[in-house]
């Protein structure tokens, strides 16, 4: 009996710990959301109000008093265009790298090295070059940098998917008289498409979240969401209502995208096959 009791207790403790951990993970998001639908009076109430009249005024303010719609537009343009270019170039590159690797040409580690490079190391020269050539605060400028900087990440992740496709597939196609181009286009790409989809979502999130390049390389014309949101922290006051509403708005697309890619996260974020 006591053994059974001990088991019940340990199961209960386990369940409690799991629920606690989930709560810690989710609480900041929940709290931010609650603050975003409070009126300014309720938001500053001490002790905090758990029951209140919800309002959407913060969300309205974000779009009406601030050009948040424009920030959204800029973020989408920059992230989507960068992602498309990265995926096109990256699929070709990743396939090539994996096949070189299969022949014993060690290239993967250079991809990893590029993935690890600190943005801080190139933001200064890029700023100077952009300033010289009038590319500061333009869409092409920011897209170019996002593309170059996230390309190694995309390639690294795609490599994992291409490696899983057996070489025999394309070899069979080649024996059948396909050109290499057709073998790649008709055989490999369709098979790799789930991996390409997952990678593109992760790359999209990376571009969506980027802060440093956007901060340095853009100003009025192009302003992405992370910069827009951080501007609610002002010199003398913090606009908590607008700020939390903005935070929730930035998170929403990520939540939706995140649901699709969760099972690919290990590969995408660890950037390395675990052996």
């Amino acid at each position, binding site marked *: 009996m006591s053994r059974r009791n001990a088991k019940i207790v340990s199961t209960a403790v386990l369940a409690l710990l799991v629920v606690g951990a989930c709560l810690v993970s989710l609480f900041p998001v929940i709290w931010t959301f609650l603050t975003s639908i409070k009126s300014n009076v309720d938001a500053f109430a001490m002790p905090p109000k758990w029951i209140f009249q919800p309002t959407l005024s913060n969300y309205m303010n974000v779009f009406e008093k601030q050009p948040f719609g424009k920030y959204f537009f800029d973020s989408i343009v920059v992230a989507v265009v960068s992602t498309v270019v990265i995926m096109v170039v990256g699929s*070709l590159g990743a396939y*090539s790298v994996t096949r070189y690797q299969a022949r014993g040409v060690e290239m993967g580690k250079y991809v990893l090295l590029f993935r690890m*490079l600190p943005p801080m190391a190139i933001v*200064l020269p890029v700023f100077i070059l952009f300033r010289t050539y009038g590319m500061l605060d333009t869409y092409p400028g920011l897209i170019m940098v996002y593309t170059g900087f996230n390309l190694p990440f995309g390639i690294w992740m795609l490599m994992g998917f291409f490696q899983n496709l057996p070489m025999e597939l394309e070899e069979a196609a080649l024996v059948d008289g396909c*050109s290499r181009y057709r073998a790649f286009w008709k055989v490999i790409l369709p098979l790799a498409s789930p991996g390409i989809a997952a990678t593109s979502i992760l790359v999209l999130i990376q571009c969506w979240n980027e802060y440093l390049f956007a901060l340095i390389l853009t100003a009025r014309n192009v302003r992405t969401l992370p910069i827009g949101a951080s501007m609610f922290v002002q010199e003398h006051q913090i606009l908590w209502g607008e700020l939390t509403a903005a935070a929730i708005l930035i998170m929403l697309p*990520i939540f939706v995208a995140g649901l699709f890619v969760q099972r690919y996260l290990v590969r995408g974020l660890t950037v390395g096959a675990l052996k």
Partner: protein
Amino acid sequence: MPAHSNKSLQHNWFSRFIEKRFLFLLLLPTIIILLAVVVYPLGYSIWLSFTNATLLNFLTGFSFVGLRNYLHTLTRAEFWNSFRVAILFSGISTALELVFGFFLAQLVYNIKGAKKRSIVIACLLTPLMLTPVVVALMWKLMLDYQIGIINYLMSVLGLGRYPWLGDQTLAFWSLIISDVWQQTPFVFLILLAGLESLPQEPFEAARVDGASRLQVFRFLTLPFMSGPILVAVTFRLIDSFKIFDKINVLTGGGPGTATEALNVHMHRIAFRWFRLGEAASIAQIILVIIVLLTWLALRVSRISTDS
């Protein structure tokens, strides 16, 4: 269709060229983009680090000064302060993330039931996906002295209120808290994958032999998990060393220079004081550290580039 393309293949010089150099041609766009956006600016930056360029003399002319920027940087107390902050920040946050991540991985590994498990994993992964700037803003809200929920909860529990972001030590720990909150799931995810791929036999043998839980952990789990642990630790060390967005938004490097890690320091030299040459020298130092860490990661951990 295949017969047709096969025929034209033999006669067409162009398609024969494509066929022969196929892999290289596929890689060419990548090489061009990386050369233009990453390698060229890096080279430019290295050259800049040997000059006395500032924003003022940039157009009128600046000159080569040899190693002066590096000597200047390496003899400044400010630089070493930011170096210390960066090292402490990556070291402490990585250590905490490892401990919590391992704990969570063990916890979730023991959950029976696939559905329950996937819900828990979804909850635990939430912070990882979020925009770092947004994470910093959320913690700024919760750690606020006046209206922050953390201070409220602490005062309810009789622990008193603290100026989280206004005190030098507490500001550093606030950063650690926000980073550990966001990045622990990363370590958790890798370690969980590691646990799931553990061989079962040794563990069953240990149970038959009556080994205690502690013994199993010490002599089986830890050694078997050393690979995933090293991967998680090296990636976290490198990525937390590169952190900028969270610090800039949460503390701005302050109060004073208490949380001014290397990246934030360089940002200030470059974009507040516009001492371009000097900032470039700091950038090269950051670069060298990252490259060394990456090299170490490739050597020590079993991150394999071929599967």
